[in-house]
């Protein structure tokens, strides 16, 4: 039986694995980026646009889901108004940074074009992430359920009847 300390140790190990993989990918990209020719992708602008748009999209989605799941006993004022205002604040911030000239390469510099290109990029990346989860855990589930286990002896036991028997 695992104790709470074991669970913390296990999750710490898993986090280290994930962080190590992220660093590995980053270093590999950086290495090839430095060695070979590459287009100027404006990674800083893309990062900033991605942060703000992800913030808007997640808050917007949470706002709509909050509305969809609301009922008469739910206290959703803070939740609904908060997510709505957070989305609006994100949109305003996005407009401000575009006006300030922090735009993406390869797209017209107006707010809508910049918004649309980043939103599409994020949607494509979201699709890829979903597929990665589906593929990895689909294969893992298929493999895990393939193992034959001995029959559970508890299944052979009779359960006790709790019904009151008439005399």
């Amino acid at each position, binding site marked *: 039986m695992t104790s709470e300390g074991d669970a913390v140790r296990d999750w710490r*190990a*898993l986090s280290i*694995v*994930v962080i190590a*993989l992220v660093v590995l*990918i*980053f270093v*590999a*990209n950086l290495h*090839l980026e430095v060695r*070979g*020719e*590459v*287009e100027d*992708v404006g990674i*800083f602008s*893309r*990062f*900033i646009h*991605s*942060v703000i*748009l*992800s*913030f808007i999209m*997640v808050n*917007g989605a*949470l706002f*709509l*889901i*909050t509305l*969809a799941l609301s*009922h008469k006993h739910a*206290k*959703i*004022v803070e939740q609904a108004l*908060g997510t709505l205002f*957070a989305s609006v604040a994100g949109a305003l911030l996005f407009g401000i940074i575009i006006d300030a000239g922090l735009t993406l390469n390869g797209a*017209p510099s107006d707010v*809508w074009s910049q918004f*649309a*290109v980043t939103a*599409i*990029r*994020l949607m*494509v*990346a979201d699709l*890829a*992430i979903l*597929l*990665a989860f589906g593929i990895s*855990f*689909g*294969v*893992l*589930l*298929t493999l*895990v*359920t*393939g193992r*034959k286990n001995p029959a559970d002896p508890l299944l052979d036991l009779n359960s006790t009847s709790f019904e009151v028997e008439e005399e």
Partner: protein
Amino acid sequence: MLPEQYLLLQFWLPLILSPLGVGLAIAKDQSRRRVGQLLLILIAIALILHPKGLDASNEGWVLHLLMSLIGPLAAFLFGAWFALFSGPISVAPLPRSVRPFGFALMALGAAWFLWMLFMARPSIDGVSNPWWQHFVTSLLTSLVVVAGFAGAFAIIMGDGRQKEASIMALISLASFGLLIYLLAEGTESDDPVFWRSASWGVLGDLAGMLVGGGLALATFVTFVWLGEKRMGVPNEVEPLSSEESARVQEILADNVEVGE
């Protein structure tokens, strides 16, 4: 520059409404569930009935990318379905002979994707899909991390799951190897410079998604916490009157036969 009206009505609006449709479709109330299902169907119809050529806009190219992926995805999903339910499980089992066919379908899905990657990049009338490299580099980068996590999870949390962990590690390493190959050598249709640029840009996008999405979730948790905090302590409940106590005892005696 504003988008064309058909893009607003048949791409952006359906996408914006999709969380509402999902939320309604999973609601407890039956009538809401029906409205949600209807909304999701309407969203799908609006996206499918794209009035102009898919190569006319960036949004159309996204739909083209989705359509291009239907084949390998369907092969993989059906393969996983067959392999999963023909294993030694007690829930809705399929004949055991179907299991190799399931694995073969999964392999077909992977091979189909590799064929598209190296030999047949999705295109319309010779014009390549502009989102293809972004998708592939996002998928491979995510696969490295997610499959690596799944492998470590199987070995740390599982009981004697070395085989499963090694296969997940193999998927992670193969994805990493493929990504590095693309960045170093490119493909028949694309120079490695474009792959490097796409991968480098994807790192910025994925990092931004992590930060922005994480911030949004933290904000949401804060709003829920504030809401809970403002609710205050509920009023004290009056103790049961003697009549109510008697009634409760009566019900208990009838059903549990207490005190006999």
